[in-house]
């Protein structure tokens, strides 16, 4: 789609674009190309000399058990967050859609966690699960479960999954509810007249009709779990215990910023870039189908 009417000034559009392009080139494109270049360099321990090594850093990366462990942690974490966040939000949205009259009230009561920063969400759940003062840790102790996420890796992973899911439910809920409310009432009523109960209507009518929304949300949730949960992990577990919660993004930060491993960190950045590009591609490839209902 193009505009028919345009202005003819020659220099002005460049002037208008300059601030955005300057920021993009200096803080996005240039650092990203630096990462690409550095990912093929190896620096000697004293920083005196660097050597070009082609894909050696990548080979070292995928041969490193710590990195493959971090890949597995990220996969478990992301799919757990995306799946539970979507399932709970879908259930709540279906309920809110069912009780149309009060849907707006429930929406208001459910959307505010979106505004809580990931790091703060982590702190909130830390209060619930802290081994010394946490109410849930205390209750679990009462039924014989010894909760200590500072020592138990599985429990630490569960804690960051809960905090990350809690924050994302609002977002999913909002989009699911919008998707359901945009289904023509006449379709639902026709199904009801034909004798389909609420459950049957949901399974055969509503859920298929909102599948574009579901797919879109799945991608968004994966991106969220990959990249936006750094704050939760850094504030709650710092990747521990014994790297049980070290996701890829946390590892880039630690290896690059604290470990100062230039080439290795750059290679990890490049892997992450490839992941975002793949997810963005998938998102845009299917975007037309989504807009139809959302």
């Amino acid at each position, binding site marked *: 789609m193009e505009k028919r009417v345009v202005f003819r000034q020659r220099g002005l559009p460049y002037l208008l674009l300059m601030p955005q392009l300057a920021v993009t080139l200096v803080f996005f494109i240039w650092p990203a190309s630096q990462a690409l270049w550095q990912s093929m360099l190896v620096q000697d321990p004293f920083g005196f000399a660097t050597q070009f090594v082609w894909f050696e850093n990548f080979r070292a990366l995928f041969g490193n058990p710590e990195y493959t462990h971090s890949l597995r942690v990220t996969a478990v974490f992301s799919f757990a967050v995306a799946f539970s966040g979507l399932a709970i939000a879908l259930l709540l949205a279906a309920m809110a859609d069912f009780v149309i009259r009060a849907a707006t009230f429930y929406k208001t009561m459910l959307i505010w966690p979106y505004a809580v920063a990931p790091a703060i969400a982590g702190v909130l759940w830390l209060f619930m699960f802290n081994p010394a003062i946490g109410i849930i840790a205390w209750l679990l102790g009462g039924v014989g479960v010894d909760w200590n996420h500072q020592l138990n890796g599985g429990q630490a992973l569960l804690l960051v999954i809960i905090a990350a899911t809690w924050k994302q439910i609002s977002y999913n809920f909002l989009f699911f509810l919008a998707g359901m409310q945009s289904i023509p009432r006449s379709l639902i009523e026709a199904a009801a007249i034909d004798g389909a109960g609420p459950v049957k209507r949901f399974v055969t009518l509503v859920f298929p009709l909102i599948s574009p929304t579901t797919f879109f949300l799945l991608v968004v949730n994966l991106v969220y779990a990959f990249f936006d949960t750094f704050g939760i992990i850094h504030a709650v577990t710092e990747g521990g215990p014994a790297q049980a919660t070290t996701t890829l993004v946390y590892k880039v930060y630690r290896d690059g910023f604290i470990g100062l491993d230039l080439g290795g960190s750059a290679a990890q*950045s490049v892997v992450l870039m490839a992941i975002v590009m793949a997810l963005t591609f998938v998102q845009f490839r299917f975007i037309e189908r989504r807009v139809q209902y959302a």
Partner: protein
Amino acid sequence: MVENRPVLTFLAHALLVLGILVMALPIWIVLVTSSQAPQDVLTAPIPMWFGDRLVENYLAVLGHGLTRSSSGPVAPMMLNSLIMAVSIAMGKIAISILSAFAIVYFRFPGRMLAFWTIFVTLMLPVEVRILPTFEVVANLGMLNSYAGLTIPLIASATATFLFRQFFMTVPDELAEAARVDGAGPMRFFFDILLPLSRTNIAALFVILFIYGWNQYLWPLLVTTDERYYTIVMAIQRMLTAADAEPEWHFIAAVAMLAMLPPVLVVLLMQRWFVKGLVETEK
């Protein structure tokens, strides 16, 4: 409602209320904890109802910070967060609306290249280019400054796309009429396009304010000077420092203060918030 099913309706309400309670439970615990005296929140079970130190605790963290971990007062950190959130929101809106205007209303060599350059930023979140971006900011001497906290984050493909979509729907007749009346492009921009964009700007501002306030990794990287700490990133230091002798009542108060402004923005400007959220994803 399509049919009357009292049992199902009751079940739906019950599930929703349960959902709300579970979502709100952590907030309740933290709110209550922030009103206790230190000795009451050392071991579980901690009190589930308010103590008598609510005002006292908040005044203490705002004015002095935590006692033992020498964290510095929280009020200046909230001011930093506010500066960061507002600058990022306004900066993103300003540079995006200008570039969308250029891309939609002008034909010039390099137009598509500019468009794709902006698009690529979608695929390069801070998290994937941590170290090189830090080096650029350090070389420019922008560490520990408001410029370093905000400028590297204000490039925005989503905002540019939103304004581009919106400008496409503005009738061509308006630009035509403006041109016939002898108005130049900037006159058209300020007198016609900008007033028409008000709702979009409001919706974007709400989303971007929350985005800016909740930044964590970036302030963590570029600030080492306490004067530039934001409240969201500082809470991690308070937690780590507090490991030996936790001051949970103060940490709870700081957590409440850190989430209050963005939550209020969402609740008070719900209409804009929902609009912004849905539109920026298109």
